[in-house]
C-alpha cells in the first residue's frame, strides 16, 4: 500500500470505507455504550447492557443520573482539583524538563553523561513500585507555609504535583528533539553574546512547539488519570481528584446509572479538548516519535 492511491473506483472505495468504518466502530462502541447508559435508570441499564439496546436511547431516558451524581458527590470539586493539579504539573514539567533537556543537549558540564544515563534509567521504574517508599518520604518533607515550618506533605496539592514534575521520559523527549535542532543557530546566538538563558528562551523554545505539545499531552494523560497515589495522599475531600471521587459511587449498592453519568462527565471534557485539538495533538506525537 502506498501513500497515494489513484485507484478510486466506487466499489473499491466503498470497501475501503467499510473497513475503516468497521474499525471505527470497534473504537467507538464502549464510549457510546457509556453515554447512552448514563441516560438510563439502573435496572434498565443493566438489562439493556447485553443487547443492541445498550446503544440506543430508548425506554426511560433522562438526565436524572447526572442530577443524582451531583447530589451524591461534589463532582465539580473533583474536576476542579484534577484540572488544577494536572494544569500546574504540566506547566512545571514543560519548564523544568525542557531546561534539563537543554542542559543535557547544548551545555558541556561535569557529570552530564552519567546523570543523563541515570535519568534515562528512571523511566523504566513503574511509579507503583516506588509509591510506598515515596509515601514514607513525603511524610518527612518540610514545608514553609504562612504558619512557619511544618513537616509532612500529605493532604495538599503539592504532594500530588511535585513527584510528577520531572521524569525520565519527558527529559528524554526534550533531549531527542533538541539534538535535531540546527546547532548553527545556537552558535550564532552565542557569538552575538547571548547568555545561555537567552538562547534557551529566545532561540530554542520558540522552535520547540511539537515537543512541548507532546510532553504536555503525555503528562496531561498521566496526571488526569491518577488514582493510586491520590488515594494514599489526599485524605481531605477538598483535595480529592476525579478518580478518587469515582469511589463515591461504588457503595454497598453500586449506582450504575450514576457511575456511567460520572464517567461521562469526567471523560467528555477530555474528549472534547482532544477533538478540538486532535490535529495538533496527533501531529505533535508523530513529530516527536519520528525523532526517536
Amino acid at each position, binding site marked *: *500500500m*502506498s*501513500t497515494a*492511491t489513484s485507484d478510486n473506483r466506487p466499489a473499491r472505495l466503498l470497501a*475501503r*470505507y467499510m*473497513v*475503516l*468504518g468497521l*474499525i471505527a466502530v*470497534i*473504537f*467507538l462502541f464502549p*464510549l457510546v*455504550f457509556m453515554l447512552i447508559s448514563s441516560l438510563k435508570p439502573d435496572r434498565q441499564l443493566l438489562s439493556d*447492557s*447485553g443487547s443492541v439496546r445498550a446503544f440506543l436511547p430508548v425506554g426511560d431516558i433522562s438526565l436524572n443520573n447526572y442530577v443524582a451524581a451531583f447530589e451524591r458527590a461534589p463532582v465539580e470539586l473533583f474536576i476542579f482539583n484534577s484540572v488544577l493539579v494536572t494544569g500546574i504539573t504540566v506547566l512545571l514539567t514543560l*519548564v*523544568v524538563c525542557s531546561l*534539563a533537556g*537543554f*542542559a543535557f543537549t547544548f*551545555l*558541556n*558540564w*561535569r*557529570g552530564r553523561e552519567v*546523570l543523563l544515563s*541515570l*535519568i534515562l534509567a*528512571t523511566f*523504566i*521504574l*513503574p*511509579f*507503583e*513500585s*516506588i*509509591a*510506598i*517508599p515515596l509515601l514514607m*518520604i513525603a511524610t518527612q518533607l518540610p514545608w514553609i507555609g504562612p504558619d512557619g515550618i511544618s513537616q509532612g506533605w500529605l493532604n495538599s496539592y503539592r504532594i500530588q504535583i*511535585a*513527584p510528577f514534575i*520531572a*521524569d525520565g521520559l519527558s527529559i528524554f523527549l526534550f533531549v531527542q528533539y533538541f539534538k535535531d535542532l540546527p546547532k548553527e543557530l545556537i552558535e550564532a546566538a552565542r557569538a552575538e553574546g547571548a547568555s*545561555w538563558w537567552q538562547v534557551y528562551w529566545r532561540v530554542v523554545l520558540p522552535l520547540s512547539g511539537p515537543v512541548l505539545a507532546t510532553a504536555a499531552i503525555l503528562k496531561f494523560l498521566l496526571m488526569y488519570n491518577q*488514582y*493510586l497515589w491520590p488515594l494514599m495522599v489526599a485524605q481531605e475531600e477538598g483535595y480529592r481528584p476525579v*478518580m478518587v471521587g469515582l469511589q463515591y459511587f461504588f457503595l454497598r449498592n453500586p449506582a450504575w446509572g450514576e457511575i456511567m453519568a460520572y464517567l461521562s462527565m469526567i471523560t467528555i471534557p*477530555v474528549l472534547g479538548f*482532544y477533538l478540538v485539538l486532535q*490535529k495538533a*495533538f*496527533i501531529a505533535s506525537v*508523530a*513529530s516527536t*516519535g*519520528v525523532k*526517536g
Partner: protein
Amino acid sequence: MRARSRLTQSNLAGWSFALPGLALVAVFIILPFFVGIGLSLTNQRLISPNPAQFVGLENYRNLMGLSVLTIEPERDAAGAIVRDDAGAIEYPRVRTFTRNNPDYPHLQGMREWISWQSRENRVVLLASDVVFMKALVNTIIFVAVIVPVQGGLALVLALLINQRLPAITLFRAIYFMPVVISVVVVSILWRLIYDGDNGLLNNLLGLISFGLIPPIDWLGNPDTALGAIIGVSVWHSVGFHMVIWLAGLQTIPPSLYEAAAIEGASKWQTFRYVTWPGLRNTAVLVLIVITMQAFELFAKVDLMTKGGPLDSTQTIVFQAVERGFRTQDIATGSAISVIGFVLVLSISLTQRYLTRSRHE
C-alpha cells in the same frame, strides 16, 4: 575550576539549568527506589509495633525459591505400579513431601508450580512462592504477546490511515481516541462488555456466528482472562503507536514509491523493500515503548480481575502493590519491585544492544 575549564565548558550554566529536574528526580524517584532496596532487606511492615530487623536476602529467597522433586509411582505389595480406573499412574500427593515431612525439610511449605511426566516418574517443579512465579511468567507472556500484536496492529492501522481519502483524518482521530480515556473508565466499561452471561461481546459473537459460539466467561476463565486483558490493552493504546508508525511512514520519500511503481513491484514487494526498511528507526522506538508500558501492567488488573481467576492475571507490579500496600508487607513488596526493575533493565539493555548492533 572555571578558570581551568575550556571555552566550551559551562559547568555553572549546565548545573543550574539541570538542577531543578535533577533534584526532583533525585528526591521523588531515585531516593524512594533506594529506600525500597533498603526495605527489601528487612522485615519491615507498613504498620506494626514490632521493630524492623535486617534479614539479608531472605525476602528474595522466599520469592524466588525453586526446587525439583521427582515422585515415584505408588506401588502395591507386589511392587507393581498402581493405576486408577482410567489407567493413569497414581502418585503420592505432593503435600506429603512438602508438609511436615522430616525427610524433606528443604521442601517445607513449597508448592507445586509445574509438573511433567518422565518415564513412570512424575517430576514436579516446586516454588516457595507460586503466586509470584505466576506473576513473573504472566508479565513476560503479556509483554511477549502484546509487543508484536499491538505493534503489528498499529502498523496495519497506520497503513490504512496513510491513504489519501476524503475524511481520512476523521478516522485517524477516532482510532486515536481511546488513548485519551482514563484506564479506570476503560476498565469499568470493558468489565461490563466482557461479562460472561449477558455481556455485549458474547452477544455479538453469538449473533455473528448464528449462536455457534457459546458465551465465554472472558474474565472469569483462567484460559481467557489474560487474553482479555491483552485485548483491552491493545484497544486502549494501539492508536498511540499507530500515530508513531504514521509519522515514520510519512518520512519515506514518495520518489521511492514512484520508482517501485515504475518497476512494477507488487503491493507486498513495495511494503517489503520500500516501506519496511524505511521504518526501521520507528520500529525500534515502538518496540521499546510498548515493552516499557507492558511491564507496568497494573491498573487494568486491579480494576478488572484482581489477579484472578486462579492467579492467571497476576503481574509483577500488581503483586508489589498488593503485598507492599494492601497486606502491609512492605519488605516483600519492595523486593518484588527490585526484581521487576532488574528484569526490565536487563530486557531493555538487551533490546538496546540488539537494535544498536543492527544499525552498525
